[in-house]
């Protein structure tokens, strides 16, 4: 570990923290329908879109109407993206003459991008036409992020409103999130990325003659515009197979920092937006505090683990350098330009934020580091998370926490002025159980059937970790890959698509049910017996609930993979 490495991490945390309040205030104004500085430019466009779609922006929906609108919107989006990928060979903007995407892969990619997961069983530059990248992948990155934020806002309205039967209008929330938040930030970020050398062109790949006389194909395309929303949306699906490790997706230290900030910006700001909308900004800070502690522990452990080096190489004395730097750390699968700190920080931010972009290969991380990345995803995206899903995941844990606290002190649980009743707790448990159920269930099936084992790149606990990582990443809508698993087979394409669908929508449905139920309740005034949820005590209580619930659910699965592999590695047994 070096002081420069720690400084890099500290700089990122400081910058990300400083964006939270201004962006949170802006989000609160956007979703309250208030005037913003972009209103004069985008207001006419917004109204035109409403007129064209026949939307009455003042007409709000009950939670059931909201969820049916959301599901219909997403199913139509899946079918539209699937059709586009299947027809890309006969559509324009295909300068490489790429063939149609195979049916199972097209379905996997369609569910992946519509569910804000961005799991990729393909290499972008050799599989997708420019039209598929622009009007398929990029468009759904916008829409899936806007949908996630809409669900979080609907849940916040549930807490903030009193005796209301409505939680907002889904299409209005998606439109405002896309127009006033995602588009402007992406436009600025894309311009910045272009100034740093990220290409934005419709020209075909370039060809260069190497020093040895060979011909090298240099893939390019409309990368910058897709790159910006890839990170801001929590989607993470790269234009190139190497994702943000590719020099044309992430060419400089400045782009690396911008990409890190984009991944955390909206997820962190939504906590402040929550505090403002429920009329107590401190409530938002306490949620961000829990996220910050979990993130800090993760990134510090990950950096320490990777910097400690590989015991197998140490045993061979293959990388001993000097007395003051006895080892160079684990550099396998990492870009030299980013180093260990830059790679560890990016990996932790990517798995915590549910974005899934990578600037190093997670399969090459040491076993304990792989376990940390898995744990980040296994706590239901609550460490900042993707736009929207991080906040609603955290609010579900808050409901569990106040429920447990209520049982301890013998009072009806309350949170931000709302009594938490039996229906809300039932819905919360349904939402929290969906992801582990699908992750562990599908992992177990893949570990015992021939098509599941056929995709493995390694044997033993590492192979098991590859399968566990794939389904965890899919169900948690993260989308990053462990890279060792060949997941482009009908078995993995279809089961991962199932995992992504359940992990996204079977969580959203009960979340919106909680929103509807809470919105109908009256606000109860704080009393001497109310549990203060904006204090340090609650922050650590909530932290304990997240760790215990996450730990109890997944510890056996982690023990069979990364933990066993780590113990074996100490005895120089490799897989």
């Amino acid at each position, binding site marked *: 570990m070096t002081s420069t490495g720690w400084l890099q991490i500290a700089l990122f945390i400081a910058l990300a923290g400083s964006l939270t309040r201004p962006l949170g205030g802006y989000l609160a104004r956007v979703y309250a329908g208030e005037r913003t500085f972009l209103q004069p430019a985008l207001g006419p466009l917004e109204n035109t879109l409403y007129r064209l779609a026949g939307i009455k922006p003042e007409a709000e929906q009950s939670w*059931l109407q909201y*969820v*049916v609108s959301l*599901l*219909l919107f997403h*199913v139509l989006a*899946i*079918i539209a993206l*699937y059709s586009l990928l*299947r027809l890309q060979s006969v559509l324009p903007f295909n300068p490489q003459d790429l063939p149609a995407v195979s*049916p*199972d892969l*097209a*379905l996997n990619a369609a*569910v992946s991008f519509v569910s804000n997961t961005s799991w990729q069983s393909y290499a972008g530059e050799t599989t997708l036409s420019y039209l598929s990248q622009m009007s398929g992948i990029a468009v759904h990155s916008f829409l899936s992020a806007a949908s996630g934020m809409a669900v979080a806002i609907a849940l916040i309205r549930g807490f903030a409103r009193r005796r209301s039967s409505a939680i907002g209008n889904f299409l209005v929330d998606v439109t405002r999130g896309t127009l006033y938040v995602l588009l402007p930030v992406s436009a600025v970020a894309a311009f910045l990325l272009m100034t740093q050398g990220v290409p934005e062109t419709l020209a075909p790949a370039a060809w260069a003659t190497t020093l040895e006389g060979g011909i090298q194909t240099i893939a390019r395309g409309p990368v910058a515009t897709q790159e910006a929303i890839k990170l801001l949306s929590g989607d993470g699906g790269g234009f190139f197979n190497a994702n943000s490790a590719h020099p044309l997706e992430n060419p400089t230290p400045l782009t690396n920092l911008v990409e890190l900030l984009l991944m955390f910006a909206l997820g962190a700001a939504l906590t402040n937006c929550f505090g403002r909308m429920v009329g107590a900004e401190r409530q938002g800070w306490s949620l961000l505090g829990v996220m910050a502690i979990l993130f800090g522990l993760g990134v510090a452990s990950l950096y320490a683990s990777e910097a400690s080096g590989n015991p197998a190489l140490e045993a061979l004395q293959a990388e001993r350098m000097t007395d003051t730097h006895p080892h160079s750390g684990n550099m396998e699968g990492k870009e030299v330009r980013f180093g260990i700190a830059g790679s560890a920080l990016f990996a932790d931010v990517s798995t915590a934020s549910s974005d899934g972009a990578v600037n190093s290969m997670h399969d090459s991380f040491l076993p304990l580091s792989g376990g940390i990345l898995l744990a980040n995803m296994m706590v239901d995206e609550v460490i900042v998370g993707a736009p929207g899903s991080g906040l609603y995941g955290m609010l579900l844990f808050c409901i569990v926490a106040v*429920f447990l606290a*209520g*049982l301890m002190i*013998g*009072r*009806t*649980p309350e949170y931000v002025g709302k*009594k*938490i*009743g*039996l*229906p809300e*707790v*039932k*819905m919360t448990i*349904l939402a929290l159980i969906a992801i582990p159920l699908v992750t562990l269930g599908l992992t177990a099936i893949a570990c015992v059937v021939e098509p599941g084992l056929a995709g493995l790149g390694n044997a033993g606990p590492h192979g098991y970790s590859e399968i566990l990582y794939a389904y965890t990443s899919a169900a948690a809508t993260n989308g990053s890959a462990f890279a060792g698993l060949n997941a482009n087979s009908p078995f993995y394409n279809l089961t991962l698509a199932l995992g992504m*669908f359940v992990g996204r*929508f*079977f969580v959203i*449905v*009960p979340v*919106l*049910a909680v929103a*509807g*139920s809470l919105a109908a309740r009256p606000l109860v005034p704080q009393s001497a017996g109310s549990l203060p949820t904006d204090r340090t005590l609650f922050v650590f209580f909530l932290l304990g609930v997240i760790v215990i619930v996450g730990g109890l659910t997944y510890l056996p699965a982690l023990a069979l993979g990364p933990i066993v592999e780590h113990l074996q590695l100490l005895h120089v047994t490799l897989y």
Partner: protein
Amino acid sequence: MLDLILVALVAVAFVLAVGYARFCNRVLSPAADRDIVK
């Protein structure tokens, strides 16, 4: 043919998700609303 089967699968997933939402709505009905701790 495979395309039609996969699109039908997506439609089935939609129906299941809507059914799940209706199930949640039944759980939330006023009769089911009881405070946990009296």
